[in-house]
């Protein structure tokens, strides 16, 4: 979470959403969760596995970025 890297840009590693309509086929792996609890659980597991940071957007979508 510390913004101390030389580069200020970080890639999105994965996206977790509960709204199927928000999924657009792209290069980023996107996971569809059935409810909010599952969304958070998947995000947490993905965040730990990928050593990434987890952010939640205003539309409820969770993105996991590079640390």
């Amino acid at each position, binding site marked *: *979470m*510390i*913004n*101390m890297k030389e580069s200020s840009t970080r890639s999105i590693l994965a996206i977790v959403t509960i709204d199927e309509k928000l999924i657009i086929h792209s290069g980023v792996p996107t996971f569809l969760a059935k409810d909010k609890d599952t969304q*958070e659980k998947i*995000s*947490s597991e993905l*965040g730990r596995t990928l050593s990434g*940071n*987890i*952010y*939640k957007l*205003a539309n*409820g979508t*969770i*993105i996991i970025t590079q640390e």
Partner: protein
Amino acid sequence: MEKQILQSFVLLHIVLGVIVGFISRWWMLRGDIRQYPTLPNGYLINLTTGFIAASIGAVAYPALLAKNYVAVTFLTVAIQQFRDIRKMEKETLESLETENYAPRGKSYIDGIAKTFEARNYIVMISSFVTTISAFIVRSFIKNNFLIIPISLLIGFIVLFFLKNYTKGHTLRDILTITEAPLEFKDGSNLYVGNMYVMNVGLSATQTRILKNGIGIIMKPIGENEKVMLNHSGQRKAIVHECSRLLGVERYIETRRNFDNGNLALVIVPMIKDITRLKEIIYDIPILEMTKKTNDKKKRDD
């Protein structure tokens, strides 16, 4: 042949210089706690280089008196050595950056390395002045019981002056700190007071931050101080010192308010102590880099 033998009073004056220099390095050693990962080794390195610096400073004047000008060139060799030590210190600290949860930053490392080098010069100057004053006093009074205390006193006065001169300022001089509540708005945006700091996606993490986190707002006291606080190196130094002395359980992040120049800091520390956190921040040195920025601004005005 007799002229080649060191006279006892010359030896005494050199010893006086070495004593003052060595004690001065010992005295300044306290400030090194934050700079070394291993204290015993750090102490040994500093005391040894301090002793060498003191010896060089103490013998410079007697060497000149003996018309041994070649010996004086050792001063330049010593300066080169101290510069190498500074470079080595810089490289060591830079190589340790990846190990730190919050890196020091290049400006802070540069400041530490400069301090490390400058202390050797302080030692050298104070021992040089001690020896030279012993010779001067001797030209008026031949009594060793007066020469010793007078030259020691002059040496320590010079040391005290140089130590204060190189001391620099801390953040205590340029800002005030107020505690501010942590709050999540719009679901996942973390605010310290009314300042946005960061986005935290998971609700479990949000709960942890609200429970264990501390939020503070640093307010610079003037326009120039805003510039100082805005320096990226200065902010890295703040983050580093806070995380190093309190430990970081989870997050540490700063964010600047563009309107008023305030700096918000949020930390989830291992030791939750707001008073200690304030003291840590107040005691952080103002980096020389930020001072330069400030001076330039003054000139432009």
